[in-house]
């Protein structure tokens, strides 16, 4: 038997080898915007090769349903690739769910095809595949629902939440271990799958919108690891490599995100996203703030040499990025140096602000990371904050009692003048008061981000 198919088998393996190399190159080329599009091409070629190679597989006897499924999937994929840039976080969460669904379904099918002759190692990785796949599937669906605002964005918490989650995890793990030792006890398999699905829902329920960048990264990592586990089950090195790459990518992003929110690594790994408790008592008494109109703001901006704009999720919500670009153009034309300070967790997923500003045609060399720009704030004339709150809160540096104490922030308070565009004095998402607003060099610009920036642009005489 083996000799008969050795030829095509070798060919498939070599195609997979080439595809793996292309996948690695694809990620390598992502290191810079200049080469990133080559990366996509490499990835696409690798993917087409791998799928074409798989179709040569000798075991395949029927192509009809494969073709129908491929066409149907492409039909769903095209609109998912055309969503607006502001909807990218929920689209990403949804695609994590799809990836995890695929892995979970294949794992389930493999179990019932092989059962009860499942060797111990295979049963262990198979359990890992469906546990990670199952919880990533429902967890990502929940995340997508929250980001799309179908589900409430506020964290939903109840007493004993951690205990229930822990219990479910133990049940899933216990069933998996039992199944490894007694592969004939088929009934435990649906239990594992079901518990993992419920676990995924409960894991994401207590998570608020501001924590989404970490959660999405973590789910990304889980999706990758479940695919790698599937690679072990199917003995496919290509899958192991792709899964390991995706898993490590998600892990690195979660580490970056957790560092940017001052959360410990273990805290992230075990998904214990304790929502920061709102210090509700503080900040409710009326402290004096200074406010300004668009006209005054425009005059201050015009008098400046160096302006740093700090965008946040509020800019995305108000869809103000195009107005911000008009402001950038108008100020640049008048000889003002404008740069953008990007906090790693600004927005709802890693790199969210960069994509929105790039969409608005703002050159990417103007988008500066936190560590790079923080030293420049003392020499900055105006820091203009649009829809960002916690990432500019100086209490994170100074106030030991603040729930965000220790979180790295953008040092906007060191700029000569700080202007904050904000709807009202209501505290931000985390409910933490921001002492920045009461500083002597801070001006509050009350209003909708899009309208207010538009107003400033009109005053500057641009944006007809």
């Amino acid at each position, binding site marked *: 038997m083996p000799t008969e198919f050795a030829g095509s088998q070798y060919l498939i393996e070599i195609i997979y080898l080439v595809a793996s190399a292309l996948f690695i190159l694809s990620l390598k080329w992502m290191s810079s915007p200049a080469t990133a599009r080559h990366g996509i091409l490499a990835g696409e070629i690798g993917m087409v090769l791998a799928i074409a190679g798989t179709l040569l597989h000798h075991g395949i006897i029927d192509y009809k349903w494969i073709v129908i499924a491929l066409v149907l999937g*492409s039909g769903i994929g095209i609109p998912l690739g055309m969503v607006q840039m502001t909807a990218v976080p929920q689209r990403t969460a949804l695609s994590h769910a799809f990836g995890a669904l695929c892995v979970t379904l294949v794992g389930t099918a493999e179990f019932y095809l092989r059962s009860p002759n499942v060797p111990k190692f295979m049963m262990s990785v198979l359990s890992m595949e469906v546990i990670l796949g199952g919880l990533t599937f429902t967890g990502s669906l929940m995340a997508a629902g929250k980001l799309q605002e179908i589900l409430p964005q506020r964290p939903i918490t109840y007493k004993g939440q951690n205990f229930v989650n822990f219990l479910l995890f133990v049940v899933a793990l216990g069933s998996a271990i039992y199944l490894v030792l007694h592969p004939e006890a088929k009934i435990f398999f649906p239990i594992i799958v079901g518990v993992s699905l419920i676990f995924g829902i409960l894991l994401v329920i207590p998570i608020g919108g501001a924590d989404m960048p970490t959660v999405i990264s973590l789910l990304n990592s889980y999706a990758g690891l479940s695919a790698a586990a599937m690679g072990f089950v199917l003995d496919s090195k290509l899958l192991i490599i792709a899964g390991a790459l995706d898993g490590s990518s998600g892990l690195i992003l979660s580490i970056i995100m957790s560092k940017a929110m001052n959360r410990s690594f273990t805290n992230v790994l075990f998904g214990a996203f304790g929502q920061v408790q709102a210090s509700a008592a503080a900040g409710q008494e009326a402290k004096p703030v200074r406010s300004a109109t668009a006209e005054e703001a425009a005059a201050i901006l015009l008098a400046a040499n160096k302006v740093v704009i700090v965008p946040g999720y509020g800019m995305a919500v108000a869809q103000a990025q195009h107005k911000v670009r008009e402001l950038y153009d108008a100020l640049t034309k008048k000889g003002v140096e404008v740069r953008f300070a990007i906090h790693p967790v600004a927005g709802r997923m890693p790199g969210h602000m960069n994509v929105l500003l790039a969409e608005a045609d703002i050159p990417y*060399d103007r988008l500066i990371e936190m560590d790079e720009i923080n030293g420049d704030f003392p020499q900055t004339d105006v820091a203009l904050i649009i829809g960002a709150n916690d990432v500019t809160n100086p209490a994170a540096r100074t106030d030991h009692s603040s729930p965000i104490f220790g979180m790295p922030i953008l040092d906007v308070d060191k700029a000569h003048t700080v202007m904050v565009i904000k709807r009202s004095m209501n505290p931000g998402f985390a409910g933490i008061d921001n002492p920045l607003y009461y500083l002597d060099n801070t001006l509050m610009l009350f209003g909708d981000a899009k309208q207010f920036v538009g107003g400033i642009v009109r005053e500057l005489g641009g944006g007809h």
Partner: protein
Amino acid sequence: MWGRYREGHGFSRAVNSKKVGLQPLRSKMGSNIINALFVFMLAAFIGFEVIRHVSPLLHTPLMSLTNALDAIAVVGAIVLVGEHKSTFATLLGFIAIVAATSNVVGGFFITDRMLRMFKTSRPTKPQLTK
């Protein structure tokens, strides 16, 4: 091979040949597991090194790209559907292909759209007017 000496005992032959079939497979699998673990370890390290160097500018496209690449799981689903070992497996495989393919197509598509938007203010090639 065992089974060959037991011609005529249809049932036991089938059972035994199954065992014989599994025997070399199992010992082969032992080394396969180790090989696979080595591959995983190396790929994870490569992933860490490569992705550490990705500019934070591109973290969103990075995530949508890795997501598209991760959908390579479609190959497992394709084999599942193609082999048609049971209706149940084929059905699950079918849904799995649809889900993964939509990730492949949508993932590459949106990553490319995002990357096309990243422009520098330094003069490069003339940009298309909308």
